[in-house]
């Protein structure tokens, strides 16, 4: 479904990704793990079009998306839940979700999508008129995921969903991600919480200093000594 072929990208004179090749099949959940500064967020920004590709090709469902802008990429069915959630703090919960359905194609199914998101995240249904900035961290993350679902995507990019959340909330969140997956969405997730994320994905890539170091089935990868010592901490 998604294919990154030898992607190189970066900021100014700095190259953050070198020859990165990543594939995600339809219906799969794939994780990209790695230490801070490995280029995980950069990878997400490249896929969603926030950051231009320097070389390599980005193909989604057979369509070449290399060089497309973020506001066009989302129309193809890729929703990006950015690092730090990036909800609109001064807008209400309802307006944030409405923004998720901004695309004409998504607008047509606005009511229906809203109902689905509210069923998935009942906390949001209880407070549609509350300012999003006044939600707790976990609720904001749910809102960010719900907002992404409103665009009726095929692939969801989750960037560090557990960042800054209390341990209890992290468990609940991973549970919710599992449920989102069961709804039939394809997921590409970036996480530092390696132990948890390997439990909910099929495959994982290990990204280090801008290069893919290792890839494999989540269960195998978790067993490998190297990954265990460095990231799982077991």
């Amino acid at each position, binding site marked *: 479904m998604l294919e990154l072929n030898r992607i190189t990208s970066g900021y100014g004179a700095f190259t953050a990704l070198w020859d990165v090749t990543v594939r995600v099949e339809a219906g799969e959940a794939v994780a990209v793990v790695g230490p801070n500064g490995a280029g995980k967020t950069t990878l997400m920004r490249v896929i969603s079009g926030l950051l231009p590709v320097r070389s390599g090709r980005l193909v989604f469902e057979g369509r070449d998306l290399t060089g497309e*802008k973020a506001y066009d990429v*989302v*129309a193809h069915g890729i929703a990006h839940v*950015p690092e730090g959630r990036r909800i609109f703090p*001064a*807008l209400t919960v309802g*307006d944030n979700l409405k923004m998720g*359905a*901004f695309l004409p194609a998504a607008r047509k199914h606005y009511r229906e999508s809203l109902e689905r998101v509210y069923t998935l995240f009942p906390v949001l249904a209880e407070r549609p008129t509350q300012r999003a900035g006044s939600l707790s961290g976990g609720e904001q993350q749910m809102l960010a995921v719900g907002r992404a679902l409103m*665009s009726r995507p095929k692939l969801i990019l989750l960037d560090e969903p557990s960042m800054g959340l209390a341990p209890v909330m992290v468990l609940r969140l991973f549970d919710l991600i599992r449920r989102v997956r069961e709804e039939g969405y394809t997921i590409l997730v970036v996480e530092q919480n390696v132990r948890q994320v390997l439990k909910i994905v099929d495959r994982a890539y290990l990204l280090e200093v801008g290069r893919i170091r290792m890839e494999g089935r989540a269960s195998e990868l978790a067993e490998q000594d190297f990954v265990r010592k460095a990231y799982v901490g077991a």
Partner: protein
Amino acid sequence: MIDPLFLLEAVVNGVLLGGVLALLSLGLNLIFGVIDIVWIAYVDLVMLCMYAVYFMYTVYHWNIWVAGVTSVMAGVALGVLVHLLIISPILSSPPINQLLATGGLLFFIQSFATLLWGTDHRSVRVNLPVLEVGGIFISFPRLIAFALSILAMLGLYLFLTRTFVGTAIRAVSQDRDATALMGANPLRLYLVTSAVGGAMAGIAGALLVIQYAVHPYFGGAFGPLTFMICVLGGLGSMFGAFVAAFIMSQVISVGGVLISTEMGYVVAFVIFIVLMFVRPGGIFAKRT
């Protein structure tokens, strides 16, 4: 001792003036809140729209409503033009350059208007009665201007809160990248914002020209006042600008009756300066 009726009349006039001032301030504040650039020349665009009504109605004898609609369309066109020609290229420039650019536009418009139409004060004479309600005299044009201002602001409010594009305009003022991730093109939203801000200028122009004479330096009178209201209400805060407009218009109107017209403005500006010391972010500073 001042006649209480006189005072009441001043209060009513203050409210009526507040409507148009609020409309002007909302237009300027919308653009600032979303694009983060102050259009110093905003009221000079209003002045151009006033001329449009003057020529359409007084010189070429079109219907006043047609002239009004033309003014709104002129406002939209000017908003779009200013955005494309002046704002768009300097979106990521340092703030001082942006101020210089829109400030330069102010001098350009003023000089250009002087060149074209001279410095004569031109008024649009609309034959409308003066109403008398319980001993208070209310000018009908002012009443209409007030009512239409309120309507325009209501329309703006509904646009910003009820429509997808309006919601996106509020969103892009908070997070440009996140708005792009929603599938909305931020640059196009800026253009729409400028067009809407321009429409507000057009409406304000049509409503001002039936009360005041227009001349190339019209912006000199209302420009600083509008800017002051925006700062007082908290730059970028729509609600703040709305309330501040009515506070300022009351001070000017009542102060004008109690002391003298010029002193009304003096008092208003003194209050502004004092408040800037007490609450530098404005009365309703936008929470960040």
